[in-house]
């Protein structure tokens, strides 16, 4: 057995720190779980339970073999991360603490990930914005952190309501960005996020974003395997760059500060470091494809009217598709699962027959619409409509999507398109 695998094996029974008040001989619940690969886990018999998105995330974390969880409470994330506290207490997570605030959270979790352990955090809109300086530095530090993001309004007037503008701030950082539709995704995807982000040729952080309240606080059916299973631990020896553990021969170089000077060599080093990060994002696509069964899901691929959506907007679009079908109209749907890596070719192929495209979003700025337009420019003759959009906590009634479709069919010119 290589030292690497030996360590990975022993990892599951390593010393537990900061677990006071447990009786002698206490065995952490995580140590009693059986390790199965993610592929095996996906094929295990499942029980379907009606639960909230926060509970689904908790069950996912229970099976994710997490070493370290650090977070700061914020609505609507708090539910999940306090549940993670109970998981720590039971011994499913090895170390856990409530950090001082989000700069502290996002910095500390990067320290943990640099140590080579599986690291989890979670936040929501304003917390994400506060931690963004640290978050933006994760990809370059090659830290495979998983950050759950329960989306929330970020602008004044201050509100706790769902609105996913904050996702747009993550799109150009070099991190992997998934946007989950419902409770089931919020159970399945964090597990996938860990496994993909820790692949050697990826070694990047990944966010699983989900629309707050609509998913986190509402119930839905979630199919999951028994809690006696967990995915394999992170192997801290397998990274694109060595962990910061001082287990390598010494060298007069600090990986985190290769750019100490201002000269053309340092500029080139920085440029190539960034290029490599964004190449790693592309390389993650093959793994996501495998575990997600495709980066996109397509309903009615030959339809001339298509809806392209991510997150909770997909569920609303599904219902619109169903109601149109009842009326005898075929409307198509493309669910974009990973925003980064962006499934460019897949979207171009799936939108081949489209004459009209709608991009419904839970934000004012239309970040998904922008990426869709850039992708289809010169590749499609479809009219791409920027909406419908709701924000500030509004729901997106299916009627809104149906109205837009109706207006477009009736050539109501008040709807702009590109």
């Amino acid at each position, binding site marked *: 057995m290589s030292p690497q695998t030996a360590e990975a094996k022993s990892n599951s029974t390593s010393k537990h720190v900061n677990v006071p008040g447990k009786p002698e001989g206490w065995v952490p619940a995580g140590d009693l779980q059986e390790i199965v690969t993610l592929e095996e886990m996906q094929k295990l018999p499942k029980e379907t339970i009606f639960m909230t998105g926060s509970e689904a995330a908790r069950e996912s974390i229970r099976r994710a073999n997490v070493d370290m969880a650090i977070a700061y409470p914020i609505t609507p994330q708090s539910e999940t991360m306090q549940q993670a506290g109970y998981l720590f207490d039971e011994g499913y997570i090895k170390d856990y603490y409530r950090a*001082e605030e989000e700069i502290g959270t996002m910095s*500390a979790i*990067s*320290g943990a990930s640099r140590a080579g352990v599986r690291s989890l955090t979670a936040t929501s809109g304003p917390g994400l914005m506060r931690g963004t300086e640290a978050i933006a530095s994760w990809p370059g530090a090659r830290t495979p952190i998983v950050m759950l993001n329960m989306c929330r309004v970020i602008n004044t007037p201050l509100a706790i309501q769902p609105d996913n503008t904050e996702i747009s701030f993550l799109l150009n950082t070099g991190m992997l960005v998934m946007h989950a539709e419902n409770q089931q995704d919020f159970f399945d995807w964090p597990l996938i996020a860990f496994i993909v982000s820790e692949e050697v040729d990826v070694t990047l952080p990944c966010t699983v974003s989900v629309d707050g309240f609509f998913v986190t606080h509402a119930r839905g059916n979630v199919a999951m395997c028994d809690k006696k299973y967990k995915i394999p631990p992170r192997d801290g020896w397998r990274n694109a760059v060595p962990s910061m553990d001082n287990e390598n021969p*010494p060298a007069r170089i600090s990986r985190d500060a290769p750019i100490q000077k201002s000269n053309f060599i340092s500029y080139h080093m920085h440029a190539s470091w960034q290029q490599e990060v964004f190449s790693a994002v592309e390389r993650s696509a093959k793994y996501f494809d495998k575990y997600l069964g495709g980066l996109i899901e397509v309903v009615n691929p030959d339809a001339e009217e298509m809806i392209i959506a991510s997150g909770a907007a997909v569920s609303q679009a599904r219902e619109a598709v169903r109601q149109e079908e009842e009326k005898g109209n075929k409307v198509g749907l493309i669910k974009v699962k990973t925003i980064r890596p962006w499934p460019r070719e897949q979207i171009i192929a799936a939108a081949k027959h489209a004459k009209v495209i709608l991009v419904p979003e839970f934000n004012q700025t239309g970040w998904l619409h922008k990426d869709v337009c850039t992708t289809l420019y010169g590749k499609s003759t479809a009219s791409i409509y920027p909406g419908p959009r709701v924000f500030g906590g509004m729901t997106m009634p299916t009627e809104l999507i149906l109205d837009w479709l109706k207006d477009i069919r009736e050539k109501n010119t008040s709807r702009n398109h590109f």
Partner: protein
Amino acid sequence: MSLDTVKPAPGYLEHLPVEYQDLVKHGQYGKKKKVSDMGKFKELIEEHPMCAGCAMTLFIRLVFLALPKPEHTIFVGTAGCGRLAISQGNVPFIYGNYGDTNAVASGLKRGLELRFPEQDKDVIVMCGDGGLVDIGFQGLMHSWFRHEKFSTFMLDNEIYGNTGGQESGMTTKGLVAKMSPRGKVDDKMDMLGLAKVAKLDYVARIVPTNPARVVRTARRAILVAREFGSTYVQAYTSCNIEYSIPTPDVMQDAFDKEKKDYGFEEHISDRAKAYLDDIEKKEKAAAKAAKAAKK
């Protein structure tokens, strides 16, 4: 890293740069070096791009000499002058965002404890006064109140050296600096007082006028942090550029400062004292035995 990791596989040594060969043959790995040995062995840090005469470099060099286990040490730093030298050392260095040191170190140290439960890994934060008490204040305080098991070394030049001489929380009252055009309004922040409030097991204030004392202080801070929790060393390391101290006068300035308002202070908790006494007694006995054996 095991000490064996330092040594190249048989047959390779002579093909490595002389620098590396010296490190293997004459380095401080596995040996305890004293100040009086300086110049006679290959130090972990030798070159640096800092200003000529910068007092920070002397202090940093002495802390590297003091490392109880360089092969199991990780430095955490941030923006500020000190990182220019620390990153040249033969010890892994995390160069984080400005002010994030004590949060990063908290996660790092806990992560290392999970991964290497049988192996002590020393995590050391070393950065400027501004990085710790201004932008990094919150992280610093919380790491102390959580008693995270790493040491914090402040390179206190009482100014923002790296950005060209603006006042920091550690600048003394009344000083005219950039961004304090009428003289600094408030007092120098009492970080030793705060460290005591947080009940740190080891707190020291020092000016590098006595190299052996710097080495002893640094070693104590690192060893106590390993065993009990946060420790703090505040070192006056003048910025001769921003304070216009001629290079030949840098040491005189240090002596003057020590006399004026930076006298040596060391606060050790009872449990830390018992622990250090035990270690230091054993070390002394071992040294005595070795000396006797030589005779």
